[in-house]
């Protein structure tokens, strides 16, 4: 069975929010749209977004890490938001594992969002239905698009290609390899929701310097044969016969 998902590489995410607004612009005018904005030019502007980038600080100065953390629906293998829906509006597709909301069936009771530990769902205050990341289901199967562009808008946009997209059930897929080889992990594993989206941790590159590297025979200083000035003070040379 196919399970489409995103793998987010925190090792390269610079927190630019490209995924946030590219998602917004694709989806507001797409099959999942429109996405409401309230008070767009007033106090406390707010709106429906499927994806957000957050910032965390880890550790204390000077050993501080700044972590940018994009978060959207994780498309759980066992999505707790689906069984609680009273109308069947919330569902997980058998063919590719995408968790979706059928806006026409949603009664806006918000119960599904309570049943999501990740806060991945957003209620559209204008349309009064629950909305969420669709993995751009209206892009990824669109055969009018070139094959390379049949990806979620956030994945196409991401300048650091920190967002990988693919089938996590196919062990040879790019995403599976990335998870396997780079220590990919799920969020809040304690709940057993089995999120399909995974995160790749920070990885550090270091150079080790050996002392010998500073004393090489080809050191250019040796070419300069710097002559030291003759000192006035007496040396052993003046005494030893």
């Amino acid at each position, binding site marked *: 069975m196919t399970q489409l998902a995103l793998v987010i590489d925190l090792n390269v995410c610079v927190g630019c*929010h490209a995924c*946030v607004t590219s998602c917004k612009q694709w989806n507001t005018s797409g099959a999942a749209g429109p996405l409401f904005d309230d*008070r767009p030019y007033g*106090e*406390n*502007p*707010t*709106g*429906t*977004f499927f994806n*957000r*980038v*957050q*910032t*965390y*600080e*880890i*550790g204390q100065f000077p050993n501080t890490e700044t*972590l940018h*953390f994009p*978060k959207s629906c994780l498309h759980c293998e066992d999505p*707790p938001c689906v*069984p*609680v*829906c*009273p*109308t*069947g*509006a919330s569902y997980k597709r058998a063919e590719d594992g995408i968790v979706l909301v059928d806006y*026409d*069936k*949603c*009664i*806006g*009771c*918000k*119960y599904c*969002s*309570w*049943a*999501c*530990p*990740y*806060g991945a*769902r*957003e*209620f559209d*205050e204008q*349309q*009064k*239905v629950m909305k969420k990341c669709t993995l751009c289901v209206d892009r990824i199967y669109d055969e009018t698009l070139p094959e390379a562009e049949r990806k979620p808008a956030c994945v196409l946009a991401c300048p650091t290609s920190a967002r990988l997209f693919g089938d996590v059930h196919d062990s040879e897929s790019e995403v599976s390899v990335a998870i396997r080889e780079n220590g990919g*992990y*799920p*969020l*809040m*594993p*304690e*709940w057993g929701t089995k999120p399909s989206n995974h*995160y790749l*941790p920070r990885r550090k590159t270091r150079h080790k310097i050996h002392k010998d590297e500073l004393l090489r025979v080809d050191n250019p200083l040796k070419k300069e044969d710097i002559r030291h000035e003759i000192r006035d003070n007496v040396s052993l040379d003046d005494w030893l016969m």
Partner: protein
Amino acid sequence: MHPTFSVIFLTTLIGVGQGLFLALFTEQSYASVNLLPGQPGAFYVTGSLIALAFLLGGLVAAIGHLGKPSYMVTRAWRGITQWRTSWLSRELILLPLVMFLIFLYLLFHYLGWEANPFGTTGVSGQLTLILGGITTVMVFALFICTAMIYASVRFLQEWACALTVSNYILLGGASGFTLATAYAAWAAPELVGFYAGWAIIITVLGLLSRGLHLIRNARLKGKSTLQSAIGVRHNRIEQKAMGMMGGSYNTREYFHGKSAAFLKSIKWIFLLLLFPLPLLLLWAGMDGNKGMLLLAFIMQYVGLLFERWFFFAQANHPQNLYYQTI
């Protein structure tokens, strides 16, 4: 969680309605075996009407919880389709069913259908007893469904326990029996002692259950941590930005936005209004003092509103870990 008044009213109003029905039916059961003096049909009819009114009030409050009121007409019917998995769906099925059964119960009493299908066994009013029995089962089922809507959300650890269920049953029952006591003061003064007694017992049990729940929740340790939320093992992690500054659904739906002191005061208000004060008034009104008994119910109901507000506010959703700093 952010307490919504639609849900607070829904759960408390139907609780009263359900409890009142149970009180009526309890009396009828006692009376049927002559433990209590029988009552004329009008007693059940008016009582059921009051119960239905509360249930209807709950239903109206529930509409407020839908995205749009129109969804009640256009989409809510779909709510019956997911009964296999969704406690909310089950509640949606049971609430009208219970109302319908109570209506039948009312109707049978109103029409005075006194048929005894099991013959003359010494038990009179068998038809309404059977109907009432079925309704009672459904009322309990509805209590369980309503409670399980909350208790089944395992992420809300404050809710995810059996005490949520016992609370809903006992507190709904207590408010119903207290209302029945006040009702009896007008309609059947001889039943005041009976109802007051039960109301006191159920209220005390409710106090026990709710008290245990409070103690349990006070000791609760969150299963999720910021560490597990973002997958970083470090004992010092602080959020610096949540990704938006003007608020979002995540900040509106899951946070009560009140101070800890406020929450604490609500707790003491509901504990006071819900338990000792109504108990005192019930005790004092045992002689049939209508005003005191009505006040007991009103006080207990208002206490329930505070209790339900606190119930929601106290629940700390794990998603909140992601929304600590603007």
